[in-house]
């Protein structure tokens, strides 16, 4: 039986919700963590079989519980990570309610009321930790794909054998798209990859994992004040990385035989139309990578001149097809499936009735603090408060900051 009133309700039992629970417990704040399935639900159910975390195990410790397993430099699977969350929930004695679905939220004087599958739950403060990258976003043009073509997305796709035999068009070249394109190509299917704006990163640079470098040079700790176009930064696609040592950039995929084409711009008359701007996007990604590696080299020279680093070997420029294909005829039978790896959006439908969204449906918040509904906080969004916000290691610092604000809110709005 679930309690029907708490000081703080946390919706979502992933790394963000659990880290928040630990912060609140340390502050003596009465709360519940409401999880719609099992702990780490999305990691267990809404990901493909081969998925491993993009960050090495050493980077995936949770607050108060650093990684203690046997493979410090390895990459755990999504399921292994979900299991580590389950262990973490008991380690921190999280007041957890599993298998409870939150359908809606409304503002009440001095708090909120949640509509849940266990009945209404009222709370003075509410933490939305239901995930920033949960619902696959599929563009409207998907409806123009002919019926005989099988369509899927990274939220539903599990393994290559789920797809019919034949060619595959993978749309999107961020982490999901390049990983799925790679395994489909290796399964013997002929893959065409439509590439828009993308982020190229090497797994390893000068003998260290790229995550080590991003952490060392302070990039992951850059905060809201350190970036000049926050909207753009928050929309940056995930990097072309895989949890493992295989390269998955366009150079590597091209070598495996994946055909690289421009951004999918439209589907008309049974034909997919690709942008002719591919070369520009590849050059832009190469330039951006070059600037990051310059920054790393400068840091290494200044901060650890004696370190035993491998020499600076720069990845070569992305090879550009001289005449990338600009269209593809679904009627030719060449393409049997389309994988829409076109991004994820937050699972925030359950609080859509709160007045906290702008005219384009985007949540308005300042570093996770939602001014439109005082007492509402959000976690786990891209660059919520710092560059590492979307990483596992972002849960600790973000929840510490937000718990502080939440604690003050409760004190200043003490129940009558």
């Amino acid at each position: 039986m679930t309690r029907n009133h708490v000081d703080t309700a946390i919706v979502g039992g992933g790394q963000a919700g659990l880290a928040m629970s630990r912060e609140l417990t340390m502050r003596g704040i009465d709360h519940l963590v409401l999880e719609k399935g099992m702990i780490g639900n999305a990691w267990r159910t809404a990901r493909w079989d081969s998925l491993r975390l993009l960050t090495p195990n050493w980077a995936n410790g949770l607050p108060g519980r650093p990684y203690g397993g046997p493979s410090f430099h390895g990459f755990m699977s999504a399921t292994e990570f979900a299991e580590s969350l389950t262990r973490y929930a008991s380690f921190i004695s999280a007041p957890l309610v599993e298998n409870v679905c939150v359908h809606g939220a409304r503002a009440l004087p001095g708090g909120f009321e949640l509509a849940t599958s266990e009945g209404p739950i009222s709370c003075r403060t509410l933490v939305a930790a239901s995930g920033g990258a949960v619902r696959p976003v599929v563009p409207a043009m998907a409806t123009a794909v002919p019926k005989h073509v099988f369509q899927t997305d990274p939220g539903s796709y599990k393994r290559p054998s789920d797809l019919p035999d034949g060619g595959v068009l993978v749309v999107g070249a961020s982490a999901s798209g390049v990983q799925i394109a790679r395994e489909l190509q290796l399964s013997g299917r002929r893959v065409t990859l439509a590439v828009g704006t993308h982020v190229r990163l090497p797994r390893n640079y000068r003998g260290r994992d790229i995550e080590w470098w991003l952490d060392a040079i302070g990039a992951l700790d850059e905060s809201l004040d350190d970036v000049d176009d926050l909207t753009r930064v928050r929309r940056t696609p995930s990097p072309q990385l895989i949890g493992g040592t295989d390269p998955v950039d366009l150079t590597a995929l091209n070598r495996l035989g994946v055909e690289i084409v421009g951004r999918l711009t439209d589907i008309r008359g049974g034909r997919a139309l690709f942008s002719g701007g591919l070369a520009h996007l590849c050059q832009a990604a190469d330039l951006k990578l070059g600037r990051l590696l310059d920054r790393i080299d400068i840091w290494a020279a200044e901060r650890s001149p004696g370190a035993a680093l491998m020499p600076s070997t720069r990845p070569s420029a992305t090879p550009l097809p001289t005449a990338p294909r600009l269209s593809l005829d679904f009627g030719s039978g060449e393409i049997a499936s389309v994988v829409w790896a076109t991004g994820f959006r937050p699972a925030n439908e359950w609080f859509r009735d709160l007045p906290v969204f702008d005219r384009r449906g985007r949540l308005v918040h300042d570093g996770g603090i939602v001014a439109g509904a005082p007492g509402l906080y959000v976690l786990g969004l891209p660059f919520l408060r710092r560059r590492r916000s979307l990483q596992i290691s972002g849960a600790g610092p973000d929840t510490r900051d937000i718990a502080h604000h939440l604690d003050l809110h409760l004190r200043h709005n003490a129940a009558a």
Partner: protein
Amino acid sequence: MTTELMNEIQNGVNVQALLDARTALEAAPEAAKFTWRAQCEWLDGVHSRTSISGFFGLGEDKTRPSAHVVETDHPAEFAAPDAAATPVEVVLSGLAGCLTAGVAAVAENRGVKLRSVSASVEADMDIAGILGIDADVRNGFSAIRVEFDIDADASSEDIAALVAQSQKRSAVFDILTNPTAVHVSTTGQK
């Protein structure tokens, strides 16, 4: 630091005015919706004259003090008097003009002093398409190449980044690389 550089106009682009406009239009999205117009009259043969004067923007119709005129014709190889550039060459001038303006604006914003910028544009076309010789050949360009030669107080990487950012924000680059729905209708027959 950047503010000082922006206030001291180097390349003749008033970046501050553009940045202010961006801020203002974020708050008033309807004002950002523009409609561009051109009025073309057939002169003779394949020679036409297009005058460009008014447009709609910032919520109202605007008229320039005087119209700009662009003529198009075809060269002798097309059995025409070559009174003006061909329409496809005017398209190339639009691309070059747009990308070059972008380079100047981005350079201004980044505090890069430009000494010279030149862009050479080439586009390939198999006229078997427009002549109806081969149905498999498209009418338009099969490829466009733009080569910038830029002399500026900046590293070659920074200059490459100017050109990349210019492409990212270029209307004509987008028009040429992505499909646009074009509706052509007819009126005026008595």
